[in-house]
């Protein structure tokens, strides 16, 4: 039973990675541009389409095709910041949200124009690079049972750990990180202190775009059907992770993402208990409801600090 439970938790590894990466990207933009970027998922989808198209048309393996995809996300983010957000500094927060929503429409319309409307897009997980056609799962004997982990999830976990670890280290110790933190706390003051906040926001947008594409490629590699709006659920979860963990820190949203996905698999595990087998259908309802209750109790988020309002 315990092994089955841990297996279940391992099953959510991939979702944890994807949501964690997206949540970090959302937070980065939230803190430097003070807006929720609804286009996060669409930019990620666009990059994922590039990778998928290279795989389908030219047979470029996904681990290699990932890089043009990342570049697409990077450029998209950069362009959005330079063309739109730099000029729209005076737009109010709701207006900024609407602008990102306009971007969603443009990308949603643009994807079918660029890539057509294929029924299904073939994709492959990362481990195909190492051992094509081998068994996708890893079995580990554990506590009197057997742990089942997909190799794809393990590879993704490693990549996510390295990427997020590097970013957290950079934020904490590098000059760039200091500039980002300064811009996040007060952009105007940061400018007065000689920080080039333009380049900070530009790098944030580019980074967020690339992280989104990484998450999308991992998601698609895990077997998700690629479509124009296939990242929407992930993105919504990332936003919710943001307020669950608290937007006031960078690690809060990532922790929130881990919490949401672990709770989801725990609730899913309850289906094994006789009499509760119908719970799978209600899985997300329960998770969201729990989360809303937690946020109501701690509005600043699990890891956030309460904000003092000055009159």
């Amino acid at each position, binding site marked *: 039973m315990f092994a089955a439970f841990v297996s279940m938790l391992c099953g959510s590894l991939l979702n944890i990675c994807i949501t964690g990466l997206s949540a970090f990207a959302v937070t980065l933009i939230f803190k430097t541009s003070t807006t929720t970027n609804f286009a996060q998922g669409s930019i990620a989808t666009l990059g994922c389409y590039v990778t998928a198209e290279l795989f389908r048309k030219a047979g470029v393996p996904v681990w290699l095709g990932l890089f043009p995809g990342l570049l697409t996300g990077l450029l998209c983010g950069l362009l959005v910041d330079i063309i739109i957000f730099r000029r729209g500094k005076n737009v109010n927060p709701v207006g900024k949200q609407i602008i990102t*929503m306009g*971007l969603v429409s443009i990308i*949603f319309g643009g994807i079918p124009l660029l890539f057509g409307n294929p029924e299904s897009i073939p994709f492959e997980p990362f481990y195909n690079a190492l051992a094509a056609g081998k068994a996708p799962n890893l079995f580990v004997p554990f506590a009197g049972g057997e742990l089942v982990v997909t190799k794809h999830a393990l590879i993704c976990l490693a990549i996510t750990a390295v990427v997020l670890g590097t970013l957290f280290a950079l934020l904490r110790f590098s000059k760039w990180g200091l500039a980002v933190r300064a811009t996040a706390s007060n952009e105007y003051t940061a400018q007065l202190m000689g920080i080039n906040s333009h380049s900070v926001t530009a790098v944030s947008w580019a980074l967020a775009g690339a992280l989104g594409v990484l998450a999308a490629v991992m998601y698609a590699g895990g077997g998700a059907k690629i479509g124009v709006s296939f990242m929407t659920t992930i993105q919504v979860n990332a936003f919710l992770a943001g307020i669950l963990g608290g937007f006031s820190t960078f690690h809060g949203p990532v922790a929130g993402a881990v919490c949401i996905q672990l709770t989801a698999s725990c609730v899913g595990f309850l289906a094994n208990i006789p009499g509760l087998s119908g719970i799978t259908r209600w899985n997300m309802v329960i998770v969201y409801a729990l989360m809303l209750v937690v946020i109501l109790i701690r509005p600043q988020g699990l890891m956030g600090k309460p904000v003092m309002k000055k009159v």
Partner: protein
Amino acid sequence: MTKENGILKGALRKPPVQTALFFAVMVGLPVLSERGLLPHSFVYALGNTLIYAIIAIGFCLLLGYAGLASLGTAGFIGIGAYTAYFVMQQLELPFIAAFLATLLLSILLGVVVGFISLRIEGIYLAIMTLGLSETIRNLLMALKPTIKIELEHVRLFGVQLGDRGSYYLILIVFSVLMLLTASLIHTPTGRAILAMKNSASAAQAMGISLMKYRLLAFVIATVFAALGGMLYMLHVRTMTTATSTLLTLTTSLNILGAVIIGGAKSLWGSTFGVFMIYGIQSMFLSKIIFFQKNPAFITMITGLLIILVVMFFPGGFAQIAAQLRLWLKGRLLKRKGGGV
């Protein structure tokens, strides 16, 4: 001439006159379609657009007057749609029962969200309501994948409503709600809501109960959205909860976008915004062969339009219209001056 002109202009500013004019024009359109002057699908699409307009005027009050941003609209629509389905199709009760049930549920939900808004503010509130909306969407998905009301159950006071009947019902509901909202804005309640937006602390200092008016604003927005959902079920009669975009973030954002580009503080502007985002696409562009073959262009143009309006005209179409009026007035004055 100027006096009569002034009276006419003054009358045009009165909400009842505006609503009556709008009603008169809209009532005539199905007759035109019967004579073959307009395609039937035009009236059907117009009905859909008016449903979104109902939702948008409720949202306009919430965002433009109370200053509260919500992303839960889609969930509220879903509640209305499911209630209509459950009461009219499952229980086979008359329309009035569905109407009352929708009203009751949406008031309850509005009160809950209103209480949440007292604790959480700004973008956090928006994401929180998004979470609520997702909860409702997942709930509906778990309850029933496809909800469908048979035509025979769509009855109003014993009369079966066809496509045209539901269009008239939507138009009447829109006009009544528009009139109520437009009048509310000029009452002390409306002023209190506006004061709360401009500064919550100052409003409280003037003795305005934040709780009362926030709850009221959310109840109004929720009721309007739920009524929209109910009317949708009477008009379209079917919805796939698992895949329908009506229940996703897209709808909440589109309504938000319509209100912003229409002019957040203008009810008619918001209605116009809805026509820009939903109406043009379904009523006009989908008839043009080029756009039929490339529907993606419509989506792209809408997106571009939204970005341009928000960036260059923060007051939305209402601001564009006001500027245009000023400019025209200036031209007229100049010409008059030149003549004399």
